């Protein structure tokens, strides 16, 4: 990147929320040589939280994101609990776990049914005017309604416990400040059969697509990487609370049962000159050798098993795609997301059947007794870390938030490159190819203040440059 390029790409004018920008660099023959996925947004939470009391963080940080506020609140509360030396009550943990499940279901349902299903139902090259939620509503109204209700189920879990669908309150150090009523527990249990049925319909849909588009699915941004996810003591998928596991690109476990508080021993970040989003990497191997991925595909790759029977059955089908090795195809993020959703709904039923879920003993209390705390959880998009350091009075002096989308940044760049190499030839780019580039990013369901959550038309700017940085073409949408 020369100075001129940087001036063009990181102009303050482009610091608008929700626009993805991609530069494709072509060689002399017009073939894609490199790709850069730019994130031009700057939020500043880490900086402006300095000086706040650490106990405020579980309330402040959910505002980072309207899609995964629960993961932020949970990670934040855990960091606070480490500083206070307390653990949540049994019921506090149950309720948090349940709300976290609700968020995951809501987010995954949005990703699959609202955003991605138009591609599967109408095809990559179909008319973009109908390749959206309106098109799905017209041609597949039952599926659209089911998708909406599944997302609603996830949100209703939050609403019935905390009174709010998004930006929930009530997750506090020591547990929950709200209990669950018997009436709400009963109402949520009544949703379970429908939620499971809809999730299975989604699984059938994606498997049918796999069968009918075998080559495309298997070659779509298929590249080797490491994976990071949270697992339970037996290696089972764990979203709310567990230990970290890294696997290598051949599937071998390189680090297991790592306490999240030691994450900095394993993960480092570096800055790049074309994006505000950093490039995290696995410390032991360095950034040049390999990068790791997080999120649904990573979690299923690192997990040994699932916790619930129906999800376990589907998990075995997932593992059969690449026996003994990780599933590297980026397209399989969708399938992994659906299996996780099935697991979540099944686990929600188990939690709701626990009599103690309506106990009033939801919170323990304590005071600060150390000045550093780390908390983590699996956000819908991947592993999330909150790391706080305070002064003796509890005021934050340093905040580090390691977000899932940031950890997937190297992989998103690589995915864009792979897809562009496959579908872009020369400086002109067809709508179908543009859609595939967008879809490669969408597999990760990234949260760039939700830039890729636009229905059917992610605001997208693609610049084509030659090896000398000369602009050849610009394609803009949204």
């Amino acid at each position, binding site marked *: 990147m020369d100075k001129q390029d940087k001036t063009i790409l990181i102009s303050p004018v482009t610091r608008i929320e929700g626009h993805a920008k991609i530069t494709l660099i072509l060689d002399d023959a017009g073939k894609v040589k490199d790709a850069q996925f730019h994130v031009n947004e700057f939020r500043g939470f880490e900086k402006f939280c300095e000086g706040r009391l650490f106990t405020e963080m579980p309330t402040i940080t959910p505002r980072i994101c*309207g899609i995964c506020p629960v993961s932020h609140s949970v990670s934040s509360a855990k960091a606070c609990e480490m500083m206070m030396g307390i653990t949540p009550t049994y019921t506090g943990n149950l309720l948090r776990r349940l709300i976290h499940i609700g968020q995951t279901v809501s987010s995954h349902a949005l990703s699959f049914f609202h955003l991605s299903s138009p591609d599967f139902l109408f095809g990559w090259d179909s008319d973009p005017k109908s390749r959206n*939620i309106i098109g799905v509503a017209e041609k597949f109204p039952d599926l*659209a309604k089911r998708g909406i209700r599944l997302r609603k189920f996830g949100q209703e879990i939050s609403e019935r416990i905390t009174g709010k669908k998004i930006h929930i309150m009530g997750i506090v150090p020591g547990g929950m400040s709200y209990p669950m009523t018997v009436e709400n527990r009963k109402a949520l249990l009544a949703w379970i059969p429908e939620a499971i049925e809809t999730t299975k319909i989604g699984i059938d849909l994606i498997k049918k697509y796999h069968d009918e588009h075998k080559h495309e699915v298997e070659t779509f941004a298929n590249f080797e990487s490491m994976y990071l996810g949270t697992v339970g003591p037996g290696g089972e998928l764990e979203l709310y609370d567990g230990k970290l596991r890294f696997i290598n690109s051949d599937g071998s476990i390189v680090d297991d049962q790592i306490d999240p508080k030691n994450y900095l021993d394993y993960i480092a970040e570096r800055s790049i000159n074309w994006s505000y989003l950093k490039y995290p990497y696995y410390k032991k191997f360095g950034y040049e050798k390999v990068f790791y991925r997080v999120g649904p595909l990573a979690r299923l790759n690192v997990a040994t098993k699932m916790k619930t029977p129906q999800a376990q059955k589907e998990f075995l089908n997932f593992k059969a795609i690449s026996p003994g090795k990780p599933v590297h195809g980026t397209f399989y993020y969708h399938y992994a997301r659906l299996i996780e959703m099935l697991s979540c709904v099944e686990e929600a039923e188990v939690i709701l059947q626990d009599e103690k879920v309506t106990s009033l003993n939801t919170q323990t209390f304590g005071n600060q007794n150390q000045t550093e705390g780390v908390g983590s959880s699996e956000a819908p998009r991947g592993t999330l870390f909150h790391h706080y350091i305070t002064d003796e009075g509890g005021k934050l002096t340093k905040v580090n938030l390691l977000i899932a989308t940031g950890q997937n940044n190297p992989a998103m760049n690589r995915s864009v490159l792979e897809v562009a190499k496959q579908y872009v030839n020369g400086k002109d780019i067809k709508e179908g190819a543009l859609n595939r580039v967008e879809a490669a990013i969408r597999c990760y369901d990234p949260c760039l203040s*939700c830039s890729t959550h636009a*229905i*059917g*038309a992610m605001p997208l700017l693609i610049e084509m440059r030659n090896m000398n940085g000369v602009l050849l073409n610009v394609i803009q949408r949204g």
Partner: protein
Amino acid sequence: MAFCSMLSKEADKFLVIGIGNPLRADDGVGPYIANAIKNKQIPGVNVVLSHQLDIELLEEAGKYAKILLIDASFLGEGLVFRKVQAASTEQGSSSHHLTPEFFWTLAQKLYHKELSLYVCAVRGRNFEMGEKLSPEVKLLVPKALDEICAFLREK
């Protein structure tokens, strides 16, 4: 509120949705006014508060004869009421929220309901961080309540 007293006898299944973020000053005027209507406990009128007009409200909205969205606006002056028409499928919307037109169209496609949908746009002045309405908008609130109640009665 004389109009609202009359409304309680006449209204039937009216849904009022107050849209906005109460932490962004005037952006919270929709929920603020909707909450005031809610506190009146008017029979036949249900109230929902929401940060944004999202897709999950569709199913609920389809159960009502009439729906009024109250939202802050960057444009116009004072209060502006309008009836919502269908959107073209090309009209964009995000997964976080829908435009009223997109909302209307989705209700038609999914639930075969032609919603009787109205918007009451309240001109906001300050959308920065803060839980208080600006003085200009605060002055508008009593007028807004009167006009909304009159609007509900007329409809």
